[in-house]
């Protein structure tokens, strides 16, 4: 059963070529069947249907007929010129046929039985003349204002849709939104294949357009409300479902622009193409970190795009100059583009489109959005989250390294929670915070997560100096890592202890020296004493010798003087003889 079911042909579809719409509809509108686009005034119904025709003619080689009940051909052509659609050229190329159906109640009188065969013939002729595959009826409900016989109109409209289906043309019918029903005249009863509802909602004075597929017979489709925009290039539907998680990744590592911060990552930086979130309370140098990142990218010669939602470019440049980040040369070289706007200037989707457009135009390698938390003032949290999801996804697919800053409220409970809940979407999350001690505030930076690489677990104190951001060395005190004045105290204590130790060593050295000198003096004394004793002894020895000698001499003289004995006796023998 299953293989057979898989082999069943899918419902054939006519791609619209409209950004995002084909993704939500899984390929386009039902081929050869009517689709109803309904919505209130100013939703872009006509625009969407015209784009369907133009894209069909240009991209899919399917000529189209536009039967306009409200605007003349010239008006239509003029209205869509702003979107870059040249209807006149398409008409000249026989890819498009415009037919304005003028229905004016004041000129029409009913005098009996009638049908709308005239309209059928007209449409049939237009279709056949260019071999059209697509038809737009904008807005067929206008017929109800021209003719009073509702029964005839309804049966004729029903017949028209059946007839179009038989002709095999993919038809788009636009209709005005009615009270309590999708369309004023209940056209949804007749068009049962595909119904797309456009909505224009103003929340907190900001307009967001949304699209929803109410039904799509015979096909799966996205069921959510998708924001869409009318841009200079036509309609752009922004489906969250484009988050396919298929993007390529890079192993290249780029610096954060703060050497100390790089050191905190084992690979000394961030992966290229990853997304980084810097959260922190007010005044914790988030912007400075972001600017340092931008400056580093520019130093590598890469183009960067900086979206500032809080400061004007001039203010940002001046402020960064004060901390040694001279961005102005990069701006002048065209490496850095600062796009500043108020978050409330546009709806979220418009911001997203502006970002998309600038990225497409400038092809940056690095994008910074400072801060994303400001966007909450434009939309609800879920909307912001949805927008950021799409944005992060888009940047990743493009391989652009992205850095976002977010202000977190000072509440104690969720200090490390981003209200937008984007933390799960980013790869690296750096948190800067106030380390508030007794009478002082210090700034600390820590890495909460870094996908794909190990990182330091320390909260590193940093200073914003006139030479940029400087991470201070870790100082470990008795109670852990210390910062600020405690760091200073600790430092001084350590210095004092070091000094004392040094002095102790010096004292011991001196002691030793003294001892040596005493010892040497003693040795010298002893030697002197010895010398005097030696001299004494030597002298007495000499005197003794002298005396002995003189004695001997005397004896001899005596012996010689008393009587000279023959043979000469020795004094010894002589004395023993005597």
């Amino acid at each position, binding site marked *: 059963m299953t293989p057979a079911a898989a082999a069943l042909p899918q419902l054939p579809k006519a791609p619209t070529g409209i950004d995002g719409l084909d993704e939500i509809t899984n390929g386009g509108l039902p081929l050869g069947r009517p689709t109803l686009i309904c919505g209130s005034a100013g939703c872009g119904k006509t625009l969407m249907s015209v784009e369907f025709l133009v894209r069909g003619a240009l991209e899919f080689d399917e000529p189209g007929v536009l039967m306009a009940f409200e605007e003349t051909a010239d008006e239509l052509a003029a209205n869509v010129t702003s979107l870059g659609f040249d209807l006149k050229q398409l008409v000249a190329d026989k890819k498009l046929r415009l*037919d304005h*159906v003028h*229905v004016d109640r004041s000129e029409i009188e009913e005098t*009996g*039985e*009638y049908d709308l065969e005239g309209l059928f013939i*007209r449409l049939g002729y*237009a279709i056949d003349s260019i071999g059209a595959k697509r038809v737009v009826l904008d807005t067929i409900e206008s017929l109800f204002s021209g*003719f009073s016989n509702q029964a005839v109109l309804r049966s004729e409209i029903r017949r028209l849709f059946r007839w179009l289906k038989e002709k095999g043309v993919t038809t788009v019918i636009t209709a005005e939104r009615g009270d309590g029903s999708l369309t004023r005249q209940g056209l949804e009863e007749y068009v049962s294949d595909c119904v797309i509802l456009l909505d224009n909602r103003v929340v907190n004075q900001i307009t967001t357009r949304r699209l929803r597929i109410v039904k799509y017979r015979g096909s799966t489709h996205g069921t959510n409300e998708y924001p869409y925009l009318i841009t200079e290039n036509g309609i752009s539907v922004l489906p969250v479902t484009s988050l396919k998680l298929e993007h390529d990744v890079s192993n290249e590592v780029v610096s954060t622009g703060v050497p100390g911060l790089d050191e905190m990552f084992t690979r000394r930086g961030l992966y290229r193409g990853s997304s980084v979130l810097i959260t922190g309370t007010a005044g914790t140098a988030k912007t400075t970190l972001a600017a340092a990142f931008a400056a580093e990218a520019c130093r590598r010669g890469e183009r960067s795009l900086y979206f500032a939602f809080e400061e004007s470019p001039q203010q940002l440049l001046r402020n960064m100059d004060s901390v040694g980040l001279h961005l102005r040369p990069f701006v002048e070289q065209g490496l850095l583009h600062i796009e500043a706007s108020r978050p409330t200037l546009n709806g979220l989707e418009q911001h997203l489109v502006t970002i998309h457009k600038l990225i497409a135009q400038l092809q940056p390698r690095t994008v910074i959005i400072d801060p994303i938390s400001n966007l909450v003032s434009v939309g609800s949290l879920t909307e912001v989250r949805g927008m950021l999801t799409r944005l992060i996804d888009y940047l990743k697919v493009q391989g652009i390294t992205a850095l976002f800053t977010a202000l977190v409220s000072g509440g104690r409970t969720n200090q490390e929670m981003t209200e937008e809940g984007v933390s799960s979407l980013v790869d690296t999350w750096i948190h800067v915070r106030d380390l508030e001690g007794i009478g002082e505030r210090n700034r600390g930076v820590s890495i909460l997560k870094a996908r794909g690489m190990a990182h330091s677990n320390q909260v590193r104190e940093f200073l914003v100096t006139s030479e940029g951001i400087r991470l201070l060395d870790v100082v470990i005190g008795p109670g852990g890592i210390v910062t600020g004045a405690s760091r200073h105290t600790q430092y001084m204590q350590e210095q004092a202890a070091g000094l004392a130790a040094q002095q102790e060593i010096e004292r011991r050295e001196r002691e030793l020296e003294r001892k040596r000198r005493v010892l040497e003096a003693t040795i010298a004394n002893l030697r002197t004493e010895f010398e005097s004793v030696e001299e004494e002894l030597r002298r007495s020895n000499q005197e003794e010798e002298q005396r002995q000698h003189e004695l001997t001499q005397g004896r001899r003289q005596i012996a010689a003087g008393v009587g000279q004995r023959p043979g000469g006796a020795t004094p010894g023998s002589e004395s023993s003889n005597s």
Partner: protein
Amino acid sequence: MEAPEQPEAAGAEYELHLYIAGNTPSAAAAVRNLQDICERYLAGRVELRIIDLSAQPEAAGEEQIVASPTLVKKRPGLTRFLVGDLSDRRRVLALLGLTPDAHDPYLHD
């Protein structure tokens, strides 16, 4: 019984174009009714054309025809589109600026 004749520079006083779409009952009724009106009220004063859209489809767009049958009154006065098979004789006559003839058998009161 009519207003004094206004001599037209070109053509007849009345110029009527009837657009029909093929050979349908309402087309036949419209042709019959129109011919009767012309004979009874506008003999010699009308330039009548009957256009079959199924043979000339391009004419529908040119003349802004939506419904069929449609009688387009080009002259005199403002252009008027008379939609339907013209069976409402009194209304058709009023729209064409003609006074109903008491002997007209198609006048239904």
